[in-house]
């Protein structure tokens, strides 16, 4: 039972990712190509398992490629947040005292900002580059990671093995990276997993508003937006990408929470 609680969400995520990476190249229609003979085709049209959208592009292929792009953006942004958060938290926790107080004050102040608006502004400023989309998202999602790492670092700071390394003359950076951080790797990984669904949400939110990923590239947020526009005639275009998005977010959240409870306890 316990094993299943982890295996089920992990398996679902794995299945979706596998499909998103392998299937598109096997499908007869590319996600950008317009099939002039089948515009707004219903599901189960020959060649289009899920039919096509209002300009004749294959929905299955678009959903799979959209999933891939959403996940790539999410993983990259989670990585950016990992680097900033771990460095910030580790430095604050290691130095302690005034440095710690100041750095954590900054984190607290940033928590109070209306972040979605800052992200919206960032998107407007840096134009429509997908690279900057995820750097921007990662740059605002690191706060929780910083708090967690700082808490762990404070707990480890006076443990004998750290003191021993210090007494042996090891440099601070060496101790932090070789002794302290590996010691909290499990907790960091759990919170990294929890960051991914959050970033998926932010990316889809931005793309839904037309500020994130831009055509001809696609992402789950764009597909949900397109589906919502045509839902009166063609509900499947909303339900399929929406379903994939919800499945991914739910499974990743559940997975992250269960691993966090297991490892951080």
């Amino acid at each position: 039972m316990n094993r299943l609680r982890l295996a089920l969400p992990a398996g679902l995520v794995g299945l979706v990712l596998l499909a998103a990476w392998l299937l598109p190249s096997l499908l007869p229609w590319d996600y950008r190509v317009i099939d002039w003979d089948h515009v707004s085709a219903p599901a189960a049209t020959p060649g289009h398992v899920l039919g096509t959208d209002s300009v004749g592009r294959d929905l299955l292929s678009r959903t799979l490629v959209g999933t891939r792009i959403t996940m790539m953006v999410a993983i990259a942004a989670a990585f950016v947040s990992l680097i900033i958060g771990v460095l910030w938290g580790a430095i604050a926790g290691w130095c302690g005292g005034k440095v710690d107080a100041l750095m954590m004050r900054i984190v607290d102040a940033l928590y109070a900002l209306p972040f979605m608006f800052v992200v919206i502004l960032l998107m407007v400023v840096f134009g429509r580059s997908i690279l900057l989309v995820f750097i921007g998202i990662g740059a605002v999602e690191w706060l929780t990671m910083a708090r967690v790492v700082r808490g762990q670092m404070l707990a480890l700071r006076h443990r004998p093995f750290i003191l021993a390394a210090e007494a042996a003359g090891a440099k601070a950076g060496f101790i932090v990276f070789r002794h302290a951080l590996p010691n909290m790797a499990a907790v960091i990984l759990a919170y990294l997993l929890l960051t991914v669904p959050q970033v998926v949400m932010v990316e889809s939110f931005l793309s839904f508003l037309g500020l994130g990923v831009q055509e001809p590239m696609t992402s789950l947020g764009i597909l949900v937006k397109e589906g919502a526009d045509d839902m009166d005639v063609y509900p499947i275009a909303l339900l399929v990408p929406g379903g994939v998005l919800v499945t991914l977010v739910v499974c990743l959240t559940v997975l992250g929470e269960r691993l966090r409870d297991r490892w951080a306890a």
Partner: protein
Amino acid sequence: MIGLVLRRLLASIPTLLAVILLSFVLMRFAPGSPFDGERPLDPETRAALDAAYGLDQPIPVQLGRYLLHLAHGDFGPSLVYRDFTVTDLIHSGLPVSLTIGGLALISALGGGIMFGLMAVLRPDGPLDRGLMLSMTLLTALPTFVTGPVLALVFALWLGWLPVAGWAAGAPRYLVLPVLALALPSMGAVAKLTRAGLAQVMEQDHIRAARARGKTGWRLISHHALRPALLPVVSYAGPAAAGLLTGAVVIETVFALPGLGRYVVQGALNRDYPLVLGVVTLYAALIILFNLLADILYGWLDPRVRG
């Protein structure tokens, strides 16, 4: 208490200034201008427009002027909606956003606390497990998916409620947007209530009350609920902020004339005063909500009054 409130209000000034500064600088670095239209303006008109709105001044001067006007409660003119000031637009949009957000907050708290209570009455029973699983699912639902799906099911297929629109706040038009906005927070509140109650039920004062023969609902409502709701209260501040942000999407999905869409539209149109005004207002509201949550926390938990 008053000292605490004053101190918190003073401490919020730097945060607010930081928000204004950040938004101001970001907007000005963005390429493009509010006067870019289909046809380029001739240079003289362009220069006259820039001068009229003070955009020809150096950025620090513009910022100083903006802050000075802001201190007098003047958000400035909208650069794109030409005949309106930002204050006009806020006056028309804010009531809509606050109605939707406020109703969503109330539904999230009411529904969440109710489901949390239902779950904890029989801990680890089938109802508890089922409810908590559905609440976890709720927290992960993005509003821009639930919104259209709810509209699809309840408006297009069943025909019970209107698809979109505002209609001067007629209740029928409010149900779907409020529900879509409230669901994720409702899940979070239910989980917090459940966890808080489960923790409180282990404590000595509950054991003492049990020993005096109190059981079931009376035990929970008179002895356990107040301390158990503390996590919910500290979540309410950030939740209110999240609902305001979430309203941006909900207003787009349901075509509501709220404030949120001005952020997106204004940012795309480079309507600097509009975006700055709305972002500043939202930041102030978020700070206010967090303060209110802290005051409520102090009222519920005498230990933190100090």
